């Protein structure tokens, strides 16, 4: 099986073969022999040569995986052919083209910091939503212009409600 991985922006190619006593995993040509035991709750006990590691894999963000090894969380994206196609088709999550700003969870819009037509920079605060007693500022995912602005101060919003669009 072949996977295409993206970690910290770098592309990696993984080839994995199941075989007697574990897996042969080849990453960018370097081969690893790994013995794996699945644990309750989705974890793995891995033996790679002498190295022993408990690994927790948690899927999140649209196919992205958070891989926890000891102290460190590795955020990566793993794409097989199918996902690759999906990705190619709707570039929804790439930063090309218009970006939606949705409500991260149900809450209340306490402030709208921009007007339609405003030029915004990447990371600029756009809307402040209050949820769980905390004010959370939603930032622009890219530099561009506010082409849609649906958020209204004081309005209650549900999870995923479209609040604004940056083009």
């Amino acid at each position, binding site marked *: 099986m072949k*996977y295409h*991985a993206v*970690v*910290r922006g770098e592309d990696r190619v*993984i080839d*994995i073969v*199941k075989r007697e006593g574990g*897996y042969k*995993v080849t*990453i960018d040509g*370097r081969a*690893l022999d*790994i013995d*794996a035991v*699945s644990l309750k*709750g*989705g*974890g*793995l006990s*891995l033996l790679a040569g002498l190295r022993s*590691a408990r*690994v*927790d*894999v*948690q*899927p*999140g*963000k*649209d196919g992205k*995986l958070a*891989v*926890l*090894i*000891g*102290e*460190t*969380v*590795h955020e*990566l994206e*793993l794409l097989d052919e199918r996902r690759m196609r999906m990705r190619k088709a709707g570039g929804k*999550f790439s930063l090309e083209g218009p*970006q939606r*700003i*949705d*409500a*991260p*969870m*149900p*809450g209340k819009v306490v402030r709208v910091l921009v007007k339609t037509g405003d030029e915004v920079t990447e990371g600029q605060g756009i809307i402040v939503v*209050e*949820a*769980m*007693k*905390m*004010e*959370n*500022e939603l*930032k622009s*995912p890219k530099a561009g212009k506010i082409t849609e602005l649906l958020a209204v101060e004081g309005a209650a919003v549900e999870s*995923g409600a479209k609040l604004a669009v940056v083009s």
Partner: protein
Amino acid sequence: RTQRVKKILIANRGEIAVRVARTCREMGIPTVAVYSDADRGALHVRSCDEAVHIGPAASRESYLVIEKVIDACKKTGADAIHPGYGFLSENAKFARACAAAGILFIGPPPEAMDEMGEKTRARRKAIDAGVPVVPGMKEPIVEGGEEAAKKFALEIGYPIMLKAAAGGGGKGMRLVENPKDFDSSYATAQREAIGAFGDGRVYIEKAVSRPRHVEIQVFGDTHGNCIWLGERECSVQRRHQKVIEETPSAIVTPELRAEMGRVAVNAAKAVKYVGAGTCEFLVDGNTKHFYFLEMNTRLQVEHPVTELCTGLDLVRWQIEIARGGKLPWTQEDVLKNLRGHAVEARLYAENPAKNFLPSPGDISELRLSDGPGVRNDCGVESGSEVPRYYDPMIGKLAVWASTRSEAIDRLKRALSETVVKGITTNTAYLKRVLDLEEFRKGDYDTGLLARAADRLLRDDPSPDEDLALAAAAIWQLEQDQKASYKAAPAASEESAWQRAGRLSALRRGR
């Protein structure tokens, strides 16, 4: 002649309700839980012997409604209430309502709450008791008093702090660096204060240099005794929310401890304080001068570090003293028993990478740490839901060791055993905080986390990256296979994963 307590209602939720229920069980006292619509499946409900539903999810319609809590007592025959922290714990009206209904309120007398509850009044009281305070307004800003307030701010000089008069826990608190930000900060502070306490009044205080938040635990009884139980250093804060607490404090010498303790006990005695209370001080990191901030008239979130170093069960003491018992210890006993070092880390359901956006949702798996010197106080377990209506703190991890550096190493070890799946938490962030040079040295102030923000969030290449990639591939392959078999575990995991996936997708704020 101490009063008997037949049954205790715990007017709270989450980890503190579970923690109080544990001590009650050890004392053989039956407990009653209260729960909102959002909490029927919460751990605190099944940790108590009885449970009463008290309304909708919104705390203003359930956990904060005095009548509903009192009714729950009548319904169950509970003759005492432990309020925990937050919610009604510092509400004198509530304490009075309990008294009126013949229910023992496990906390200080309402008069003491009145005097300490409202910050500016507490400041006056402290000043009268000879307790040093930070220069600031003696009264909250009144309707239309904004201009006068700005003048006052200019007089004591910027930077200044805006604080909610009814406040606590950093809610409705704002640092203002210079005059032009006054109006916006004032508006935010007011809004947060109303949201958190239903009281929008705010006052001004001078900001202290390299400020460290050091608080003293005090305990008084109904026989006029009052002692201090050492300090807690709570300067590791993010937006005025405590993140890591420790005792003893790296800057507190035995002399300073005794002096702060004496002052704290004076403040408590000045209001005839009874039960567990905490005097919060701001210590100037340069001059080591300390200023009284406020007195919290309840158990603190971070009380476990004091328990670990004194060997006491503060909840047991609260109950014993509420029913008229004498303090079992003198001040000398405290000094004899203080031992070692304790550090606590708060586990929050939040996403540090997304500006600490709260991340409520279902916990698919929770793995806590164990072994020597480790204590977990948790309000959730595997399968629990973290509701979006309440504070995102899901639990606390505290450790004890004989020295500070061993305690920090132990906390790091324990955090590396702590795994929460299904939602995003701050565990990895906490580990990085423990590695900050300033923290290791004990040389930090309340600005630490803000200053170190970049170091705490950067993601640098890890030596395990290839192993992580291999693990991901193995995991994915097994998932796909299981899924194709439609085998039970895979299917159930898949759905959990997909749920998690959806949640975090939403959390991205796209």
